[in-house]
């Protein structure tokens, strides 16, 4: 299978109170297209930073990120934005819906950014798939946490991304809602054939992916296959 994400000698350092703070150091791994993977580790281990760098949300201090054979570090922010729009989907812990847009409008944004026409039926279809067919005209503030996360999932899949990044997707939800969301993510992912990279604390959830990378103190401490074929 082809490699969709290649992380090479990745490092990230921040200036904090006049001192250098190394958050990630010497990170190396590759991800094959269509696979699923979890990044786990304690708070402050650099999981979210790694996700941000891998998705092109930030630039690394050292090393490189290659997404779908495109070296992200050589691109400026607008070029990376274009890559995200074409190839990447996101699901965040805090949903990150635009509060001033309705659920349907939130879902349509990625395709609207591409300038595509007649996208409403696609958005309605996805909204139905996540079980919110009758909530399209509601604003995020009028939806429950679980419903907001479903809208966020529909938005993540509308541009048919090759890779989906999720950051603690159930972190803000109760156990029962979480189960439904996770099931939906994996189902949609399977249906679309998308690569899934998930940051989570939850080892049970991590074990549903095919591979787990463990981070500690900004370094990879283990990289193991789980045997799951999700």
């Amino acid at each position, binding site marked *: 299978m082809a490699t969709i994400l290649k992380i090479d000698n990745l490092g990230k350092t921040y200036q904090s109170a006049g001192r250098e703070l190394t958050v990630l150091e010497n990170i190396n791994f590759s991800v094959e297209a269509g696979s699923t993977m979890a990044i786990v580790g304690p708070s402050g281990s650099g999981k979210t930073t790694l996700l941000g760098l891998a998705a092109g*949300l930030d630039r690394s201090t050292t090393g490189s990120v290659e997404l779908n054979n495109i070296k992200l570090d050589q691109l400026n922010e607008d070029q990376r934005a274009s890559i995200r*729009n074409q190839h990447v989907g*996101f699901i965040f812990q805090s949903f990150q819906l635009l*509060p001033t847009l309705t659920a349907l409008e939130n879902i349509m944004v990625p395709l609207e*950014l591409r*300038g595509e026409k007649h996208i409403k039926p696609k958005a309605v279809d996805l909204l139905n798939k996540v079980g919110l067919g009758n909530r399209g005209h509601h604003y995020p503030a009028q939806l429950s946490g679980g419903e907001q996360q479903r809208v966020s999932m529909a938005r993540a899949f509308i541009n048919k991304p090759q890779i989906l990044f999720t950051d603690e997707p159930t972190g803000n939800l109760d156990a029962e809602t979480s189960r439904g969301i996770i099931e939906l993510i994996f189902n949609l992912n399977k249906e679309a054939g998308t690569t899934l990279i998930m940051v989570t604390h939850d080892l049970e959830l991590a074990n549903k992916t095919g591979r787990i990378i463990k981070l500690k103190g900004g370094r990879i401490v283990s990289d193991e296959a789980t045997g799951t074929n999700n």
Partner: protein
Amino acid sequence: MNKQNGLNFPWLVKMAWRDSRRNRSRLFLFVSSIVLGIAAMVAIYSLGNNMSAEVDRQAASLLGADLQLGSGKQVSPAIQKMVDSLGDRRSEQRMFPSMIYFLKSNKTRLVQVRALGGEFPYYGVLETVPASAGKAFRNGQAALVDQTMMLQYDAKVGDSIKIGSVSFVIAGTLINAPGQTGLSASVAPPVYIPLQYLEQTGLSQKGSRIVTQFFFKFDKPVNMKKLIDDLEPRLDIEGLSYETVETQKQNTARSLEDLTNFLSLVSFIALLLGCVGVASAIHIYVREKIRSVAILRCLGAKGKQAFLIYLIQIVVVGFLGSLAGAALGTIIQQFLPVAFQDFLPIKVTTDFSWSAIGQGLLLGIVISFLFALAPLVSIRKISPLNTLRLSFQKFSLFKDPIKWLVYLSIIAFIWAFCYLQIKEVQESIAFSIVIIIAFLILVGSAALLMWAVRRFFPNRWSYLWRQGLANLYRPNNQTTILIVAIGLGTAIICTLFSIRAILLNRIELTAQGNRSNTILFDIRPQQKDSVIALAKQFGLPVEGTVPVVNMRLEKVNNITGEVLRKDSTIKMRRGIFDREYRVTFRDSLISSEKITKGKWSGKKDGPSGTVFISLDENFATNNSIKIGDTMLFNVQGSVVSTVVGSFRKIDWGRVQTNFLVLFPTGVLEEAPMFHVLVTRIESKDVSAQLQQQMVQRFPNVTIIDLSAVLNIVSNIIDKVGFIIRFMAAFSIFTGLIVLIASVMISKYQRIQESVLLRTLGASRKQIFNITALEYFFLGALAAATGMFLSLGISFLVAKFMFETEFVLKWVPLLIVFVSVCFLTVFIGLINSRAVVTRPPLEILREEV
């Protein structure tokens, strides 16, 4: 089609619309700050356009004739010959200041007598009550008396007044005359009498204090420009000034343009203040939008796209705000002619001015765009990483070169606007610098306050005081914008009070202690002793009289009036050869003057010796006259050659007989002259009695009572002050709107904290007190900064503009201070009441 490489403008507009749905009331709150500024501009521009159209329409009736010639000299046979040869119909008017005596009320008043012969005005009318009086008074021993004076002296049509030795029946109340403004009438109220009675009054012997005007009507069209070109050399020689309909139109239009330009600049301050409010509100708005922008960027939006979404919102709302401002301005414009009637020589219509509305809209859009741009450009730099965490996001004001470009554009815009109003590069730069410095002082004070509060934080104070104080420097504080808005409003109010106090004090000072407060003019040599005797009968201190000789300047070295007119490189004021000089002679200096350069001998050296004169040093400097220069004077027909021997520094603020030109003794003793007597009258009753007796016995003597001058000046200051207050009100109300908008916007910021405090058990009273204290600190500091700023401005105005003593009147300033503090706390609390009085959960649900 994939438009990812383009901006996809229709989508940007759609997103701007969608994003505004939940923020519209707030967006309109932002631009409400510029509504009043735009309204003021549109109202002033409309007034200007209507005035300009009216001047074109009413130009002939402004002058009342096709041509007017005027002279301060006695009418020579040569002038009379020329006058008789001009026009098809002619009128003559002689004007001079004199005392008028109301027989019924037994009161006197200094007026401007206008002895009129002929049918003037040929265009327009002498507006009187009854209307027929404007013509009828010419047929008998009758007068027209200014309406304000009629009211002040409780005079009625049919009563009598005495001017000089003649009594006149008041034929009518004078409402208006061609070219007259309410202001000019309040300085020297006009009284018209028929010219044929001037001789009988005995006042025509005043010689050159009388200004003679001739008005001409041409029944057939005349090429006025050619006529003036032909006449001009003769007019120059005879010292006659001229006005045609065209020159009157130009002069009036220029004066009115100066007025509207000045008012536009005052309105511009309101607009700028509003714009600072907009910029501040948008700064907060942008902070709140960080997450939304980060999400959009995550989904693939470019920085420019995110920036444009919000820019479109602001420009559209700016346009709507400007539209509201233009509508309000058009309504306000209906009232401006009433407010400004004392300053306008014409009746102004209140027509709808599309060009004014267009200018207002354009200005509103440009200015809201420019000022919104400064905070909006930050959007380009918002990282998508903010979707994951906000902690590494920092706005750096100084690192973005585009921001500096925006600030430079704002400064350039301010200068360009000022330049368009003033049309002088240096003055517009100076005005812009003053505005920017005022803003910087206020912004600097806010920064200093925040630094000082943080640095010297009173840890021992109670929790409520500490919390209220800490809110001044915490993130998302409103300290800077509120100090600018409230401070500028306070500075404007205090400056108006201070300048009024300085002007009145300048006059009051002259009458303090044992200084003279009454001047008697035009005493003829033969009346001198009797006038002194009468003054002494009243027990007044009199140290003799001062002789005054009228003369004109013919030459300075080899420069004549004609040479000066032709050679623009000569650094001399144009009017130096056109004016009358009232000159005295004496052998010594008086207490209000001292020699600063050269030597004063006080006596002419023998019959053929050189006449060394002394000049006021400012007069000499302004006209580039040096010690040793020769000056040739024409003393009513006789030529006197003099040499500048010395310069004097004169204290013009004192009521003394001060003169620009001082002659030594032994030169002018035989010249035609009149005398001036200066004295001090302690009581108003004595002053009134003296004036009555003086007018009855010596009707040609003019009396200037300082208390009357004080009243007139006070009246003028009130009228001018009203206009400035009217315009300043726009700035002050804009300041209030900015204050309200800032408080309401900060409410969204403060809700989280207040709700948390409420959740943790803070009582309503505690939240109320914290809020009240915060706004009290803000109001107090802003008012204090504004007051100090105004004191600085007033000091500079007093020292450099009026060259007088700076006076500090604490009481009005204290009242302003307390009022501003109260208003700030009141508005702060009113707009924060939802946070204080309603249950936390209800607010949270509503505001999220």
